[in-house]
């Protein structure tokens, strides 16, 4: 009897082992190359992206745009003869899922680098992990200042302008344009929103800020916050929010018949995304709303080519690739973003040399002086892993953000805001960055 049961248990355990072990095939070696994820013909990189969940509206297009740009580069011979294989997986903007999908990309898919992992609350949970595993963590899709810690996180590089810099530039603009007016903040209650507020507070006098309201991504009920801000009768509302919450707040203000001036951070202000969100949210609430008139005149900032600027060589290049590879997605700021960051990655991979290694990639980036689709320079050096160093103020007109004035650069500390005078570089004729 005893023996029978023990044997039965052994059989069951063996069966579970068989299940667990089947599918281990993916754990093969790295193809004899020096670096994981690099073979003679391919470089495999991975990313975590919100393809579903609260941040998916708008942001789910980023990775498709990056993929389209890599496909375009691959069709033109790749980088040093290697094609870029871009694996991006859904984390639903849920930190717990970010941890598990990133572990999968690193341990099972053995990616060469993590590229453009999206989201502050999500990516901050895997930064320590990626650095411990010595995986290059390039161009995090978040302007949190936390990516700029070369000593603590030598593998991690930011890309977009960080939220403190952005907050400073927006705050300075508000101080100059709306002197003495009442200001209210509506921000995401994590490093994203809190960093933005840090930058804003460096310029906007404390006494002028009449209300500070925050939201948690995930819960879509922001009625109380909108009510509080409306009651504070602020003339200017600054939104450090992702597009979903910009739209929700705009609709709540409409319901309360509250008409302040809106100042929206870059990540939450893409006009086409907002128009779509406003209309679909209103529809869910049983109301017919035209989205576009609601966002006209919103003040925001940008650091890339404007999607609606047909004369810009970068917009022309990206439109061409868009039409060829992902024609079904609307051409908006997210597409420009995804292709621009992919462009910088191609530059980085070129800089890493003929036989890229993880270490070589990071060292090449620290020495780099890339120019590309941005209106301001990168901050990359041994001492700084921050991305773009500033932005230009703009206003939503029609479907575009129209720049007003000159690009501005600053640092993430107490440094001054300075105009940047060099013109935006032209896109290369064949769309592929010149090697070197």
């Amino acid at each position, binding site marked *: *009897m*005893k023996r*029978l*049961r*023990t044997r*039965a*248990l*052994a*059989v*069951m*355990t*063996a069966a*579970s*082992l068989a*299940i*667990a*072990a089947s*599918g*281990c095939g993916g*754990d093969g070696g790295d193809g004899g190359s020096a670096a994981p994820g690099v073979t003679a013909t391919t470089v495999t990189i991975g990313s975590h992206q919100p*393809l*579903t969940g609260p941040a998916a509206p708008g942001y*789910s297009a980023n*990775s*498709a745009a990056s993929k389209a740009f890599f496909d375009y580069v691959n069709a033109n011979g790749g980088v040093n003869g290697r094609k870029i294989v871009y*694996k991006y*997986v*859904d984390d*639903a903007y*849920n*930190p*717990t*899922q970010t*941890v*598990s999908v990133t*572990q*999968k990309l690193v*341990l*099972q898919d053995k990616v060469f680098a993590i590229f453009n992992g999206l989201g502050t*609350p999500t990516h*901050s*949970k895997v930064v*320590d*992990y990626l650095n411990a595993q010595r995986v290059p963590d390039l161009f995090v899709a978040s302007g949190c200042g936390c990516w700029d810690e070369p000593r603590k996180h030598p593998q991690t590089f930011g890309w977009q302008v960080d939220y403190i810099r952005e907050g400073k530039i927006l705050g300075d603009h508000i101080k100059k344009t709306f002197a003495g007016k009442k200001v209210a903040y509506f921000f995401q*209650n*994590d*490093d994203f929103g809190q960093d933005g507020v840090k930058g804003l507070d460096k310029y906007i006098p404390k006494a002028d800020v009449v209300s500070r309201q925050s939201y*948690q*991504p*995930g*819960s879509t009920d922001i009625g109380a916050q909108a009510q509080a801000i409306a009651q504070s009768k602020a003339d200017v509302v600054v939104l450090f929010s992702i597009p979903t919450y910009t739209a929700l707040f705009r609709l709540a203000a409409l319901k309360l018949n509250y008409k302040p001036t809106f100042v929206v951070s870059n990540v939450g202000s893409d006009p086409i995304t907002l128009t779509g969100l406003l209309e679909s949210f209103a529809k869910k609430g049983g109301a017919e709303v035209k989205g576009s008139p609601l966002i006209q005149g919103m003040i925001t900032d940008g650091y890339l080519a404007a999607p609606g600027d047909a004369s810009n060589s970068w917009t022309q290049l990206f439109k061409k690739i868009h039409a060829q590879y992902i024609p*079904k997605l609307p051409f908006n700021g997210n597409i420009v973003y995804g292709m621009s960051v992919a462009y910088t990655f191609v530059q980085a991979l070129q800089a890493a040399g003929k036989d890229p290694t993880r270490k070589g990639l990071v060292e090449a980036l620290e020495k780099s002086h890339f120019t590309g689709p941005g209106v301001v320079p990168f901050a990359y050096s041994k001492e700084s892993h921050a991305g773009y160093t500033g932005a230009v103020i703009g206003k939503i007109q029609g479907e575009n953000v129209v720049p007003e004035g000159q690009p501005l650069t600053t640092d993430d500390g107490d440094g001054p805001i300075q105009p940047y005078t060099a013109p935006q570089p032209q896109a290369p004729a064949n769309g592929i960055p010149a090697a070197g």
Partner: protein
Amino acid sequence: MDTVLNLLRRSTLTRHTAGALAALAALYFLTTAVGPYRDLQIAQVGYLTCAVAGLTVLTGLGGQISLGHGAFMAVGAYTAALVIGHWGWPLAAVLAAAAGVTAVAGVLVGAVAARLHGPYLAGATLAFAVGLPGLANYAPLTDLLGGQNGLTLLPPVPPESLGATFPLERWQAWISCLGAVITLFLLANLTRGRFGRTLRASRDDEIAAALSGVRVARLRIAATVVSAACAGLGGGLLAVVATLAAPGAFPLTLSLQLIAAIIIGGLGSLAGAVWGALILVYVPTWASDLSSSSGLSHNIASNLPLAVYGLVLIVVTLAFPRGLQGGLRGIGGAVRRRAHVRRDRAPGPRGSASTDTSGPTTTHPGGADEATADQGARRDDRGEPGDRGERLRR
């Protein structure tokens, strides 16, 4: 009579000990043979097994439906994160605290739940599952609990005696699997004894159980506490493996998945809990691999894993109405019947237990250590009318 019972009970204990040791040995070889990613998945199976096994006791044996077990896991995970973050206790103490604090939560929920039945109980525990993770976002608590961002834990450092290059993932798998084996071992002993017997009795006929001296309400509270402690341990292990406790890890779907796991695995069987946990971990992984290699547009591909998961649930439920464990037992029984027709006809619960292919962790409604042959329970074992699903609905 007493001495016979005692002997039997003691032999059950030896049997379970042997089984647990065998499982630990097997898991040792498995975790050292596979790569770090597989180790992580094994760790996930481990902590889910704790929670599913706990729910099996409450729902499968006690007949009480709980839609709130995801919230119990959250309590355990946050307890672990807070204890590590503020006091830096050793890991075993942290996990004990996770189970302990969740057990206390179980007392509170159990006190309410003992007075409720069926849909009312489901509703009350549902509210618990929906409301509790929301506490993390409640303004006065966001500083303590980290809001939506959650609390980050330092990963458990493998002891130096294991060598400098010992992979962290294997260490996490060991911790998690040890927790699962201990949970199963304790639950197997508990449900074989008086506790399990009275629990089943109160599930099958509350009035009869009360008439024969079982204090049903107290028993149900106890079952909820045991079950919550298991879920709390599972949650604590989750926090240690994911190095994170965040509300996003404990959505309502987690509670529903745990329920699905006990049904797929086999209601009321601890071995079924292992099957359920395996399915919870591996089916979504396979589904997402499938969808990412399918070349579909990303709108479809990103939602496909859920659809595939649902499909697997439907197929398993149709093919094995009594769960995977029930199905296996049925197949094993059929094979054995053909081989030993006579032996199988022999009466008595020991005979029926020998048709069991599941090992020592399986529990029967009649209980293998039951002294008298209970006709109803035996019919149940053979999958004839009066099986557990039907009993639950009563």
